[in-house]
Structure formats: C-alpha cells, structure tokens
C-alpha cells in the first residue's frame, strides 16, 4: 500500500477573500508500504495540515492523495488518525471506545466485545475495560486511542504529536510500545513530532518541513538497526543533523 502525495498545496483564505495564508506549498511525497515515517519542522509549518488532508479532515487547494496509484476519495475508516488530545469519547468506557469502529461496521455486540478485549489485553490495559476515560492517565488514554484506531484495521495510521503531552518517562514507554505495535502489524505510520529524539528512535525515515508555507526540505533515512540505543554515537549523529536542520529553518524564518 504505497501512499503518494502529488502536488499537494493548501492555501487558507479568510472570509473576506482578501487575506490568504499559504500553509503548504507543493508537497510531493511517497511513503512506502509499512514504512515508519516521521515529520519534523517548525511550529505552524503545515505538518498537521498535511496529515489532516491525508485523513480527509481538510481538502487540499490543489493536488491529491493516491494509494497504490489510485486517488484516495474516501479516507474515512481507511486511514486511521491518532490525536495529541486522545479524543476518546468520555461517555464510553475503554471497551466501548475501542469497539466504536466495529459498531460502525455493524459487527454484533458479543464479537465486538471479544475483539476489543483482545486488543485491550494486548495493549496492557487488561482490567480497565469498563473504566471511563476520566479515570485514566494520559499514557493509558493514548493506548486506548491507538487500540481504537488499530482495531478498524486501517492501511495507514497518521499520528499528530500523539505523545506530545506526556511526561518523558511515559513517553519513552509508549515509544517502545508503538514500535512493537508497528513491528507486529506492519502498518504504514506517518508520525508528526516536535521531539527529535523521538523521531530518530522510531523512524525508518525522517522528513523535515521548512517554515510556512511548508515544503519538504529534508529527507533522512535512519540507518540504525533495532533496538536503537538513544545514547549511541550513531543516534547522536542523526539527532545533530536534524537539530541543525531545524535551527536553519528557524533562522531562515526570522
């Protein structure tokens, strides 16, 4: 399942039609099947906009998204999305949240529940199936959100700074967890982050956005075999390269 973005542009116009802001300027990108790709870049550079366009939450001004060469018309339910704010339904228990996508497919209640429990246990949340989100920690909420997305079996999972509001210990744990999920499911993942360490730790490839209007200025294959050691010289070399790229972008934007 190759994902292709062809000549993607996004311009926001305000209501009067006078002021307009270019958010994305011509994005061309090919994501390999099963690839773990991270996107870094200055704040407001359009990384999230790109994800939202792929997910069908926004329309591009020009260009289109292709999957296996075919234009992606109806991404809802086929492209998963994990939000920084978790976006769990607070009135549903953990299990009911995970079951949501199956409910939409009219899968009968018993089977839904069975499948959801399987995911909940696999995600280390056993015993919490009947808990409401209000009683979960941030890390647990994000696990539930990932399970809720994964259970619908999307071909691509988009993650918009999913660990951005977690403390660093929880964050590291969830990164390890996500790697396991990815290795077992071999989904294509596009992962937006501000955290360089996270990008190097997780990704096969990191792309860097320029300041607004965003365009891809860096594409870096991370050639470190798993498991990756965050303190190794190799790791640091990649980290340094991305850091200096980001610094260039922020001075260019001044």
């Amino acid at each position, binding site marked *: 399942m190759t994902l292709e973005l062809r000549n993607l542009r996004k311009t926001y116009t305000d209501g009067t039609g006078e002021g307009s802001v270019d958010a994305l300027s011509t994005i061309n990108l090919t994501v390999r099947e099963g690839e773990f790709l991270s996107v870094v870049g200055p704040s407001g550079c359009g990384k999230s906009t790109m994800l939202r366009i792929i*997910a*069908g*939450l926004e329309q591009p001004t020009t260009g289109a998204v292709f999957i296996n060469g075919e234009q992606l018309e109806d*991404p*809802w*339910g*086929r*492209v*998963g*999305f994990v*939000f920084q*704010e978790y*976006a*769990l*339904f*607070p*009135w*549903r*228990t953990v299990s009911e949240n995970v079951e*949501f*996508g199956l*409910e*939409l*497919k009219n899968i009968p209640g018993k089977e839904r529940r069975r499948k959801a429990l399987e995911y909940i246990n696999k995600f280390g949340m056993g015993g919490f199936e009947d808990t*409401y*989100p*209000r009683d979960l920690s941030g890390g647990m909420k994000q696990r539930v959100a990932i399970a*809720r*997305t994964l259970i*619908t079996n999307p071909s691509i999972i988009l993650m918009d700074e999913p660990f951005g509001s977690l403390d660093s210990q929880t964050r590291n744990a969830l990164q390890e967890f996500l790697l396991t999920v990815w290795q077992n499911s071999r989904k294509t993942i596009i992962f937006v982050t501000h955290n360089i360490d996270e990008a190097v730790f997780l990704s096969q490839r990191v792309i860097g956005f320029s300041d607004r209007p965003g365009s891809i200025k860096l594409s870096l294959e991370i050639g470190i075999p798993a498991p990756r050691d965050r303190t190794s010289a190799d790791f640091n070399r990649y980290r340094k390269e991305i850091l200096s790229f980001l610094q260039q972008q922020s001075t260019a934007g001044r």
Partner: protein
Amino acid sequence: MNYFKEKSRLLFPLLLLLLWQAVSTLGLLPSSKIPSPVQIISGIKELALVGLPSGSSLFMHCFESLLRVTAGFTMAAAIGIPLGILIGWLRFLRNMLTPIIETIRPIPPLAWIPLAILWFGIGFKSAAFIIFLGCFFPILLSTISGVLSVDKILIEAAKTLGAKEKKIFLNVLVPAATPSIFTGIRIGLGIGWMTLVAAEFTGVKSGYGLGYMIMVARDIQRPDLVIGGMATIGLMGYLLDVALRKLEARMLQWR
C-alpha cells in the same frame, strides 16, 4: 464528620425558625399578618387532614399540580430537546429560527395566560400550556448550546474511524450534549414549577391545585394556610430538583 456536616447544614434554618417563633411568642409580630412557625405547621396539618376547601386535602392539591407540571414539562422536553439538537446541528435552521426564538423567549409565560384562556379555556390544558412555556426555553437553549459546544475533535475522531453523518449525530453529538440537556431540564422544571402556581391563580376547573388552594386561603383570610401552601411549593420544588440530580448522577456516571 460527614454526619456532623449534614446536621450543621440544617442548623442555621432551624435557628432562624426558633428566632421567628420567639419573636412571635413575645407578640412582636402581628399574627394576623405573619403567623408563627407553630401556627404554620398546624396550618399545614389542617390542610393535610381537613383540606381546603374542606374535603380537598393537601395531598390532592399536590397531586393535581404535579400532574399539570408533568404534562407541560413532558411536552416541553419532547419538543425542546429534538428541536434544540436540530438547531444546533443545522446552521441554516439556527439562522432562520434564532430571531424568532429570541423574540418569543422574553415574553413571560404569565403574559400568555389571557391567550391560553382564549385558546384552551380555563382548566388543565391552559395550565399545562403555561408550564410548557416556562419549561420550553431553558430546555431548548441548553440543548442548542450543548450541541454547539461539542468538542470538534470528537467529531473528527468519529469521522476518521469511519462514521458518517447519521452515526456522528447519534453516537457523538447527542451523548456529548447530554450534560447540557440535563442542565436545561433542571432549570426548565424549576421554572415550570414556579409558573404553575401563578397559572393556577387564574383559576382551575377541577378544584385542585396548590396555587388554587393558596387563593382560597387568602379569600378566607388565613395567612397561616397561605404560608403553609407556599412552604409546600418550595419543598416540592426542592425535592423535584434533588430527584433530577440523582437521576443525572446516575445517567452521567462518566463525568
């Protein structure tokens, strides 16, 4: 500790009643205008046992009043909640109806009484209609604002999970707006209950109703019975709200 707190909440009102009784006993209050708590309590007893007019017991008055409120309130909820959800969901409906709603809303329910009598005559229907008006707007407006304040990200999450319009409406919008709808129901019932008594002042056909009872007590110059009726109204309004709050806590466990 909690037990003590519960008790201490009643302490101040009790002290106030005692003070009132003391002032009355000392003859500082004209009992023909402001009867003492003891007189009022015996008045309530009389209302319950003898009835006013004689034979029409307090219980029956309460029952009839509750019936009218239930009728008006149920109608208000049955129309207000679905309409509110639709208005919140559909922008064109909102633009179309908001000016009308905002013009009718400031008209006090009591100002509708003459029209209600012209339409429905004196009796159950008129009273229920007035109560309906009292309940309707708080329920409608809270529902609209509940739908409007639904976190957009929940709708987006539902979309990416494959939900279409209808499912988003039923599975996201409605449950997300429920707390706000409940607030509207509680405010609506409170206002409906207040409106009821005034509606009953204009007359009832059945010969029952707390408002009607109070008017009879005034006609026979019995302030103890008037205040006794008022106290009953207050207490029942309070109990209704407690019951609703219990229901709310049960239905919205997730909060």
